[in-house]
């Protein structure tokens, strides 16, 4: 599976905003923090606002705020705003003789897609935030003395 850039930018910004739903951040705040294109991110944010995932706040200190429920919003909820997760067989032309094989390959990719969607649709933003916090704490922990 390869996620497109818009999906990745959306996941990064939604997770950043969901970390503190009271906080407002601008596109450049997020783009600068993660070293991503603010131009591309701006388009992604417009879509997220349109879909109601984030809220655009106007005025001084305005920016974006997470507008969803971290316990209910899954990775798939965000990704499918930007792409469909369907495997493609890159076989534009084939003879009739290939049809049974192609049909079987479609069946296999369909199985893969079902599992992929099931995984992404059951990992909530809350779970990702919890895991990333735990990973950050592990990194921050000093090594025990005498060990490398």
């Amino acid at each position, binding site marked *: 599976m390869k996620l497109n850039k818009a999906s990745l930018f959306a996941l990064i910004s939604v997770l950043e905003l969901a970390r503190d739903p009271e906080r407002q951040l601008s596109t450049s705040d997020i783009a600068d923090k993660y070293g991503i294109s603010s131009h591309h991110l701006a388009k992604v944010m417009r879509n997220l606002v349109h879909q109601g995932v984030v809220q655009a706040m106007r005025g001084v200190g305005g920016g974006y705020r997470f507008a969803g429920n971290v316990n209910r919003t899954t990775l798939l909820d965000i990704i499918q705003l930007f792409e469909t997760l369907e495997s493609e067989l890159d076989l534009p032309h084939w003879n009739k003789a290939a049809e049974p094989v192609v049909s079987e390959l479609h069946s296999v990719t369909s199985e893969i897609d079902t599992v992929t969607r099931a995984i992404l*649709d*059951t*990992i*909530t933003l809350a*779970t990702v935030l*919890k*895991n990333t916090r735990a990973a950050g704490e592990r990194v921050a922990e000093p090594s025990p003395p005498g060990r490398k």
Partner: protein
Amino acid sequence: MSKITIRDAIPSDLEAIIALDRMPNEDKTGYWQSIFQHYVVAGRPDRVFLVAQEGKSLLGFIIGEVRAWEFGSPPCGWVFALRVSHTTREGGIGTRMFTEICERLKKAGVDTVRTMVDIDNKLTLSFFRGMGLRTGRYVELEKRID
């Protein structure tokens, strides 16, 4: 919410458990009687049946056990039933029951816990993922044989 306790199930919990698990057009009384015999009455440390209680009400249950060499796997813990009443979900009861059953299974000598959930049961799958479970080394396969 008053104090919720997580404790071992006792034989007199049977009716409350059946009520918690009740589904329309399903009578699972026989199933639950058998489960109580195996996991409550037997009183073995490698079979764990816990309930969450608040006052006189049971709000949830979780059941698991140590299984050895199934499908070639070394001994590990299996959690095969989990329910929290609709009215008290997202209050941390499932987390407390799961944490406690993991402690019990660890004391029984295993270092891995597994479960299996219907692919459409998003709520339960999300819960277990939130508890840190990930796709494991054993993949479930099935085929209709009618």
